[in-house]
């Protein structure tokens, strides 16, 4: 479903990688590896279409993501370094607003349920600025609970999470793969994803 051919990435004056390609099918996880500065985040941003590649092409369902970008974006869920939550809003409001803006239907009950699953029960109505680093990350991750789009792109999703939350998230990702979803992910922590095929891609 997701294919990349001959990608090249140049940042500043450095060529980070060239001639890079991969293919990913339903139910598969692409696990990007590489030391700090290898270009993982850059590659992810190419995949989601925010960073135009120097050379090469990325295709989703056989179509270039440049050309069919709205269709592609309707199938995509991205989670970056940044949490994309508003400090002034409560976790519940954040979750509803982000679903709203991404044109997804999410009922308030579903949202409350998702927040409970990420362990924020009792804090639904506290403005996010009062949450700890890990709790903020959990609000961002709550989006994934009800997310049914096929392609997930996750940039270091485990950062700042405690052990219990890491396990929970690994479970969520493998659930997605089992449902036939695709995922692209980077992380420096070693986390086993209990289901699905894992392809590794090492940048260096």
């Amino acid at each position, binding site marked *: 479903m997701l294919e990349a051919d001959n990608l090249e990435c140049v940042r500043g004056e450095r060529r980070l990688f060239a001639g890079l390609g991969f293919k990913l099918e339903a139910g598969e996880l692409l696990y990007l590896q590489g030391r700090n500065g290898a270009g993982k985040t850059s590659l992810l941003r190419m995949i*989601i*279409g*925010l*960073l*135009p590649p120097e050379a090469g092409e990325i295709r989703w369902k056989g179509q270039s993501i440049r050309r069919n970008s*709205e*269709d592609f*974006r*309707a199938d*995509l869920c*991205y989670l*970056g*370094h*940044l*949490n*994309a*939550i*508003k*400090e*002034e*809003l409560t976790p519940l*409001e954040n979750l509803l*607003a*982000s679903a*709203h*803006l*991404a*044109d997804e239907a999410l009922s308030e009950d579903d949202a409350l349920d998702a927040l409970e699953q990420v362990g924020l029960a009792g804090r639904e109505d506290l*403005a996010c600025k009062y949450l700890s680093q890990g709790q903020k990350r959990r609000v961002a991750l709550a989006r994934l609970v009800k997310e049914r789009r096929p392609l997930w792109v996750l940039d270091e999703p485990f950062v700042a999470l405690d052990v219990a939350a890491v396990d929970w998230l690994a479970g969520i990702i493998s659930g997605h793969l089992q449902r036939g979803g695709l995922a692209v992910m980077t992380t420096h922590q070693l986390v086993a994803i209990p289901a699905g095929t894992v392809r590794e891609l090492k940048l260096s």
Partner: protein
Amino acid sequence: MLKIIFAVIGRDLKLAMRRQADIVSALFFFVIVVSLFPLGIGPEPDLLRKLAPGVLWVAALLATMLSLPRLFADDHRDGTLEQLALAPHPLGLVVTGKVIAHWLVSGLPLALIAPVLGVQFDLTGDGLFVLTAAILLGTPALSGIGAIGAALTLGLRGGGVLLSLLVLPLYIPVLIFGAGAVDATVSGLGGEGHLSLLAAMTFASLGFAPWASAAALKIALE
């Protein structure tokens, strides 16, 4: 299409309400700047009456401009802007919503309080009416043009001042016709011509600015 615009407006207004300070303070800035001038210039009422339209418009312009840097900066910093750019509809629509919300928060209140301030500068009934109408018609253009500047300077350190550098020259026509409308009315020439020019600028900028801003935002996100 309208749905997404309303969703954005709703969210931005909720954020503005949550911060409270936002709405009240933009207004206060306007009021304070307007009151500063007599301080620097002296209290002669005749002089003040002459200055009124110019001072009010410059203050409105600065008040709008002051709130511009945050138009996209907050969304950029916390990653929401990426998410908006990745949503499955054109980014221009989202920006349209943000521009409208910005006007509701920063332009509309100015128009509502302008008559009160105008009275203090000894403006007459007609002049007051045209002043309000001009501000009401002109401020959306300020928000629209400002959005382009805000998008272009997004993420640049020192962007706030750079932004004013880009935007102020483009604001000048609005200023001239806005103040001109009041002047013309006060001197009995009738300000309709000026007002319809203001309206034209507002429509043009509301139609065009969101798409230019969206393009600039995509560049900022690369």
